[in-house]
């Protein structure tokens, strides 16, 4: 093999591998990226059962109940409209998880219409708001901010 050729072959192999990685990434991202839903979006156009998604909104007041095992909770998440999605979660709740505060639930929708959360992200402190809740329209954000502050006190 001539010198020029070997260099060319190396470059081609490297390019093929990198482009392959890029295509694979693009394909996998389309399938595996975790889309974010507001409750009204989820009610109007629910994701496929079992598909990993994130649901973000506010924990409806008076909806939080703890099951007999002491570690499973159910609550409902509301957004800007009346739509409310029931959520079930087994695990330790985030420190500042209270009714009326903002939450992002990671998980998937069950066949019965209940969202099974595998992880809950709540407000950590006054500086940290789950990213998805940051850009909610101003009215909702203001409402949430005031409510979460009340929840903190």
């Amino acid at each position, binding site marked *: *093999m001539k010198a020029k050729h070997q260099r060319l072959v*190396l470059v081609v192999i490297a390019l093929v591998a990198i482009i*392959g990685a890029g295509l694979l990434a693009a394909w996998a991202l389309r399938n*595996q990226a975790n889309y974010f839903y507001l409750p009204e979006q989820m009610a109007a156009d629910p994701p496929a059962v079992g598909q990993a998604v994130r649901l973000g909104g506010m924990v409806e007041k008076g909806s939080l109940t703890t099951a007999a095992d002491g570690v499973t909770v159910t609550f409902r998440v509301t957004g800007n409209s009346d739509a409310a999605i029931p959520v079930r979660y087994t695990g330790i709740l985030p420190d*500042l998880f209270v009714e009326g505060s903002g939450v992002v639930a990671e998980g998937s929708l069950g066949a019965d219409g209940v969202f099974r959360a595998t992880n809950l992200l709540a407000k950590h402190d006054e*500086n940290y708001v789950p*990213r998805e809740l940051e850009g909610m329209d101003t009215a909702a954000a203001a409402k949430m901010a005031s409510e979460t502050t009340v929840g903190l006190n």
Partner: protein
Amino acid sequence: MIAEIGLAALWLAAALAALQLVAGAAALRGGEGAASPLALYARPAAVVQALLASLAFAMLLYAFAVTDLSIKLVATNSHSMKPFIYKLTGTWGNHEGSMLLWVTVLAVSGGLLAAFERRLPERTLGATLAVQGFVALGFYAFLLLSSNPFERLPVPAAEGSGLNPLLQDIGLAFHPPTLYAGYVGLSVAFSLAMGALLTRAVGPAFARVMRPWVLGAWVLLTLGITAGSYWAYYELGWGGWWFWDPVENASLMPWLAATALLHSVSVLAARDALRTWTIMLGVLAFSMSMLGTFLVRSGVLTSVHAFAVDPERGAFILGLLALYIGGAFAIFALRAGAVAEGKRFAALSREGALVFNNVMLSAILGIVLLGTLYPLLTEAFDVRVSVGPPYFNPASAIFAVPMLLVMAVGPLLRWRADRPERIQFEVMLVAALIIGVIAAVSFFGSFPFLPLLGLGLAAGLGVAAFLPLRGRRLARVPVATWGMVLAHFGVAVALFGMASEGAFTKERLAAVAPGGSVEVGDFAVTLERVVPVAGPNWTAIEARLAVRQGDGAPVILTPQARNFWSPPQSTSESALLTRWNGQLYAVIGNQAADGRWQLRLWWKPFVTFIWYGGMLIALGGVLAIAGRVRVDLKRRMARRQGAARRADLEALAGAPVPAE
């Protein structure tokens, strides 16, 4: 006064960086022999700049140590009641301080290069120092114009507002400084690569100068990532050791690039092959460091690492990033054609295996990069997504598995060309081990696919790591080779830890009344009582758990739920019971309405091997540096003795013959 000295030192350092740029450029234009008078200043400028940047950092450290509340940064990030060690580490637990640390490390590594590097031709070193000065100048501008750490308050604050409690941990003392030193150590590799490219000096001599810097940066990155992973594991209380968080990825990407660079620079040093590829990796590695800095420091991400959410700063770093990366790749594109072709090699050779692994590492880097940036891209179109383990794990495994397989046999191959028959036995042995372990483990139960594969690979790699020593006199094996063996064995150990954590972890979540017990794995855990406790700047509720394994004596574990008051925040302090074969991980949650407490327990077999493996990899890197430095010193010594002897002989020959 302290703040003013620091600020003045910083301005002076910036001016010296400009001088270093000009002087280095003059050396580049001047050519060998006819050195321009300006070129003399490049080395001293770099050294003095390093001293001044260190002085500025020391001033900030002092301000934090005495909690000088007239400085804005101290007032917003520290608190007089904080334990002393966290006052010190809090210096870099914020945006401005951490950027100052970044720039200080940059200046110090430039200074070290200028002070001690004597092997490179002056023109190449001048160009290198010019590039280093140019990079430093941009980051000084960033610090001085948009994130001044020494800004005074008009009226001193009465009390500071404290440090994020998640950062009030001994981890903050190790993780950011080592990671930054690693990030920024790559800047020297970058500058050297640009310098060699500009002066057409790409070759084995240049690779030998670059190698210790790459190795050193890589060792520090490895340690920083390992420490960060363990810190997140015990501090966040989520029981995981890697979350594919964008900020974690930001540290992983330079590591992947540096790993590839480390291997290709060795090929260049030993065999004079892969010239352009090494240069490109040098540019890529530091680009990833800067991208990581941008992701973490610009506020485009929300996480414990993102201190500042200020669009101006983000735009500034993005501008610097575009300038440096764009400029470097433009020079690369213009000059790469002029780099002469290196030595050739057959596909089946050690070079071939290293090229394959380089390409695989780059592919993994691409996967991680795309996954990290994808949410930012879609957000521009108002679609919000998050990308997590379901994407990263399989997509990176597709490239990691072939890479690990080649890693097992690559070191057995000969340079230049080899025959497959020669390593038949070793290949069969490794393959048999991998398949045997996978078959044996799946016989005992059904486990997820990736951890199962990981267990098999770990067994194969663990043995394969030592095969290069077969048939050699152990006492005569070079230190650098021991380093390689150890680092590769460390990969196997870490892989074993990851795989057994993934395959065998037992989790138990229960609400327990005081006096009640739960079982996890072969441990029985009794909740004795829950008591309130207080620390210097927090209060907490603490569970006392009596853990019994079989009939043994109970061990007390005390997980806490802490409440800090400045800033007001709660954290969960996990409690760990470490055994040689794993860790028991306990977290206390909320109290249910009926008075029971939530407990979350994990038994994680061999999870500690992940971090032992990381340390072994770093130790391997240290041995490689030590071995290279020793060889280099020996060579210098031999050359000096040779020169002395020749001088003696000449003196003898010239001396008059004594009269007899």
